Structure formats: C-alpha cells, structure tokens
C-alpha cells in the first residue's frame, strides 16, 4: 500500500507539469495565477501523501493545512493587486 502511495505521489508530480506550462507561457498574468492556484491545490494532497510515506501524518497534516491557507491568501492578494491595471491584457487576444 505504501508502494501505491508513492506511485500516486509521482503521478501527482507529473500532473503538476501541465499547469506549470500554463504558468510559464500563459498569455496573461491571470492565466499564470490560475496555474499557480492549480499547482497549490495539488501540493496539499502531495504533502498528505508524503506524510503517509514517512509515517508522520500527524505532523504533515498541519503543514498541508497551513499550505492551503497560504495558497488561498497568495492568490487572493495577487488578484487584488492586478485589479487596477487596465491595459495590461491587450496581448491576450489570440485570434
């Protein structure tokens, strides 16, 4: 079962590559923000799985909870920051 957990963790890491593409080459800033949010929500589960692998779930669940809070606050603050910037997004129309 622990072997299965490590397989799931590796698969999650592979899935994270796809939003990373969106982070690197996203046409707008908000696209990158969406990618960061998706990576963060996968990281929460990854932390829980790492806790199972090390046999210390009681410690890693706190880290996962804190990471979920941090991810939420980061996305909220960044999207508030990009509120007022008009005209940043002209390049985004991919016809």
């Amino acid at each position, binding site marked *: 079962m622990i072997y299965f957990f490590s397989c799931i963790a590796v698969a999650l890491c592979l899935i994270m590559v796809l939003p990373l593409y969106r982070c690197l080459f996203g046409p707008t800033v908000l696209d990158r923000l969406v990618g960061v949010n998706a990576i963060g*929500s996968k990281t929460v589960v990854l932390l829980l799985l790492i806790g199972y692998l090390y046999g210390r779930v009681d410690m890693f669940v706190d880290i996962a909870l804190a990471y979920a809070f941090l991810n939420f606050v980061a996305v909220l603050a960044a999207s508030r920051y990009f509120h007022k910037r008009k005209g940043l997004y002209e390049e985004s129309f991919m016809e």
Partner: protein
Amino acid sequence: MHILINIAAIFFLAMGLIFFLGGAVGIIRMPDFYSRLHPAGKLDTLGIFAMVLGLVIYNLHHFSIEVLLLSIKMFLIVFFVFLASPTATHSIVDAGMRAGLRPWTRKTKKE
C-alpha cells in the same frame, strides 16, 4: 476487511487522480482564461475531496482517538478548500472583468 478498506482507498485515490488530471488538461486545452477557470477551480476541489476521502478510509486500519482527530483535521482541509476555492475563483474573475478582458466566444455563432 482489510482488503475491502484497501480497495475503497485505492478507488477513491484513483478517482481523485482522474479529477486532477482533468483539471490540468482543462487548463491546457481551454481557449481563454474565463473558461480555464471552470476546470481549474472545480475539478481540483472535487479532486481534493476524493483523495482525502480515500486517505481517511485508509486510516480505518488502526482506529484510535488520535486517528479520529487526524481524520477530522483532514476534513477541515476539505471544508476550508470548499470555502476558499469559490472565493479565489471569483476574485480572479473579478480582476479579469475589471481589467477589461473580453471572454472568448465561438466564431461560428457570430457569423
């Protein structure tokens, strides 16, 4: 009994993995930023729910009061994500709207 627990845990973990994969592929494939939010915000939420459910079912192997508290803590994460994910999605959409980003519409409909 142990085999049943293992099968249920594997089932839910695999389902969560499929949801996560769907969200990631949706982020890549969708045409514009508004429609990208649909898979990103929601499939990830359900993915976290399914995976944590699988882990909690795996916890049932050795039941004690500490493991119960651990499972409640895990569901606290899920509850928080269910509250936070719509807020984050709405905040990003709001930023896009105020920046004047027009949504992608289908070309064939517009003639």
